[in-house]
Structures are given as structure tokens and as C-alpha cells.
């Protein structure tokens, strides 16, 4: 059975290692924080200027001056810090943030990503995404494997304006976990009950299937 958004987030949470500073994008990535193991040390950075984010505030304790990059009210953990935007992107550009998890409209087999614009139709803007993908060494995309019309979002080549080139290292979708290297999607894991065939059918880009593909353990 294909994963839901929480399932994707839960699987990605396993990629978060001890000692990591992590930047979470809007949408599914935000959910990842809920599933990170309690026994490892992790800090969440938000590019609007906070390190050491905690959970949402209790009702009535929200503060307009303390938000995340999704403009949601948040809290901070002990050891947190606030800083200006330039310093925030020093952390990102300077590779001090170890892992970036973000959503995408399209990912290509060479690691290109598109997630900020549909010409003539929709423009959200890139926000901090272009800085994040151009800087981080470890970029995981969290998204549905296909779009609302059933078309693959894992492509040979992105059709939408790019956010970054050759930067995505891993993709976790409702169907699979895939590593990007040598101009191909390498299938690492299947969602529980999802067949390799289903994944092949949903993947437009080059898919490498090497040996037996295990089911995800979530």
C-alpha cells in the first residue's frame, strides 16, 4: 500500500542521524520532525532565523515574533538561538546544515529539481529553496511519486523552471525510496505492498533496479 504523507515523513525521519542540523521545507518535510528518534541529538534550523525549533506552542502561548519559514507559530528548545537572515544563510551556504528535506514538483534523473514555478500559471517563488539546494551536500526530496493527473514526477529531464541542478541525492515518495547517482534513479526500497512494477510504471526517468528490492521498514 502506498504511503500517506505521514508515512513518507516517517521513512525520511530514519535518514536523520545523530548530530545533524536539519532544515525542513514546507509540507511533508515539516512532518518529519514528529518522527525523529528520541535517542539522537538533532537540531532543526529554519531559514527565517531560528535554530533549535521545538513543537507548536500550546494554545494561547503563540507569539507573533516566533515563527518558522512556513509562517507557523513555533516554540524553541533549550539551546536555541535567533539570528538575522544573512547569518541564517551563512549556516546553509557554509554547509553547517547537514541535511535539507524539501518538496518538489519534479525531480530529474540527474538530480535537477523544480519546485517554485509553473510558467503562466503559478508562481510561489523560490524562497530559500535555491540557496538550500545549491549549498547542501545531502538533499532529500519528499513528494508524491505522481502528480494529480497521474503523471510521473521522477523524470528524465525537468519540464518546469529549475530550482537547482544536479543536487538531489535521495527521493522518498509514497511508493519508494530512490537514490540519485550516475544519471539514474536507483531503487532502494519499496513502500509496503507496492511492487517494483508499479514503481517502474510511475517513474518516467531511468530506473535502476538491482537485485531484490526490500520493503521499507518504518
Amino acid at each position, binding site marked *: 500500500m502506498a504511503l500517506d504523507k505521514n508515512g513518507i515523513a516517517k521513512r525520511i525521519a530514519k535518514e536523520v542521524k545523530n548530530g545533524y542540523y536539519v532544515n525542513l521545507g514546507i509540507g511533508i518535510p515539516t512532518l518529519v520532525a514528529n518522527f525523529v528518534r528520541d535517542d539522537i541529538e538533532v537540531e532543526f534550523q529554519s531559514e527565517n532565523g531560528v535554530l533549535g525549533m521545538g513543537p507548536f506552542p*500550546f494554545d494561547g502561548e503563540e507569539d507573533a515574533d516566533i515563527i518558522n519559514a512556513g509562517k507557523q507559530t513555533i516554540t524553541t528548545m533549550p539551546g536555541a538561538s535567533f539570528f538575522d537572515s544573512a547569518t541564517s544563510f551563512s549556516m546553509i551556504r557554509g554547509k553547517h546544515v547537514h541535511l535539507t528535506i524539501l518538496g518538489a514538483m519534479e525531480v530529474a534523473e540527474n538530480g535537477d529539481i523544480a519546485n517554485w514555478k509553473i510558467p503562466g500559471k503559478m508562481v510561489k517563488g523560490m524562497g530559500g529553496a535555491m540557496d538550500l539546494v545549491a549549498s547542501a551536500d545531502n538533499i532529500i526530496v519528499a513528494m508524491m511519486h505522481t502528480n494529480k493527473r497521474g503523471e510521473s514526477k521522477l523524470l528524465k529531464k525537468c519540464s518546469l523552471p529549475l530550482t537547482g541542478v544536479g543536487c538531489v541525492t535521495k527521493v522518498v515518495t509514497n511508493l519508494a525510496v530512490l537514490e540519485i547517482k550516475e544519471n539514474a534513479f536507483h531503487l532502494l526500497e519499496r513502500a509496503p505492498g507496492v511492487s517494483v512494477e508499479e514503481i517502474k510504471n510511475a517513474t518516467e526517468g531511468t530506473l535502476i533496479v538491482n537485485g531484490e528490492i526490500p520493503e521499507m521498514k518504518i
Partner: protein
Amino acid sequence: MINKKVNNVEEALNGVKDGMTFMLGGFGLCGIPENAISELVKLNVRDVTCISNNAGVDDFGLGLLLQNKQIKKMISSYVGENDEFERQMLSGELEVELTPQGTLAEKCRAAQAGFPAFYTPAGFGTEVAEGKETRDFDGKMYVLEPAFKADFAFVKAWKGDAAGNLVFKGTARNFNANMCGAAKITVAEVEELVPVGELDPNQIHIPGIFVQRIFQGKNYEKRIEQRTVRQKN
């Protein structure tokens, strides 16, 4: 001490003219210079270029200037959460220069710090880099981005003093800090103007040298865009 205090928002915005370029601090609605924005609406300056990470929401923040068709061009990183912004952009009424957020911040900092331009990896290989110089350093590609040039920077701080020193609160610091000193005239509005000497010299986020005018703001709404909470068990 050099006194930067002015009596009110009217004095603070003295010299603002049609066609100028403004920087406005804030991220979403967090830390926006509410008093300056209201006054810009009241002054009805037209054809202005606004450098601001976002453009507020439809009925608050820079959205008010958009509704009023005062803005000729926006330089921002994110359009979402503002339908009027997206509509004006897609229809071509509004010129929009979308800029990666880190690049936006650094273009402010470069202006503040006297750097003419800088190389950043953000946007390489995308339409953001079109027509711009790119360059390889140690096998990685970078895009040359120029410093901003602006007439006024409008920022909002939590506390400040007549020397122009500023302290921000939480994530309301954001672009406000980087825009100080990045325009010809920096106007700071503060929630609380404290007596000179009250702020710890060791804990000032922006030294007064980067601020030309400061005033006690009023009637802050401080709207929350996404009120997310959890319930106590």
C-alpha cells in the same frame, strides 16, 4: 552620542518620493514595519520599487500598497500567501524580480558593508542566473550578484534608543537587521524606545551608526499568518 530620534512617522518618512526604491524588513508578517507601511499608503507614493522578502497578505503589510497599485516593481523571494501579488505578477501589471532568499539577504548585507557584488551558488543553472556572470571556484559554479541600491530602508525593531541602537525579538530580526545601513536612509520604528544607556552595549543587534532615524511606533497589530498550536493534554 548622535541623536537619531524623530518625533513621529511623518518626520521619519520625510523625503519619500514617487519612483524611489524602498527596502522593507520582515518575513511574512513577522517583524514588518507596520507604521512605515501605513504612512506609505497615506502618502500615496507611486511607482515605487520594494525590496522585501514577501509582500504581506492581501489586506495587510505590503499587500496594502499592492492593492493601492503604488508598487511598480517587487524584489522578493516568495509570493505565496498573497493572491493579489500573484495576480498582478501573472497579469504583468507588476514587475517582479524573484530572488533566492539567501541572495536577497546578502544583497542587503553587501550594501550595508560596502561590497559591490558577491558570488553565490544559489540559482546557478536556473533562470535566476540568466544574463548574469557565472564562475567556477574550486570546481563549483557561482553566480555574481550585485549589492542592492535603495533610497530608504524601513525596519522594525523590538527596542531601540535615540542613538539608533536596535534590538530585535525572536524571528522578527530576519531581514530587518540586514537592511539597516543598506539604503541611503534607514528608518527604524521600535515597539519600545528606551533611554540611551539602558541597552547593554554588548547586546545590541544593530549599532546606531546603521540607522539615520528612529521613532516610537504605535498600534502594532503583529498579525499571525499561520496560527499553529497544540492542545495541553
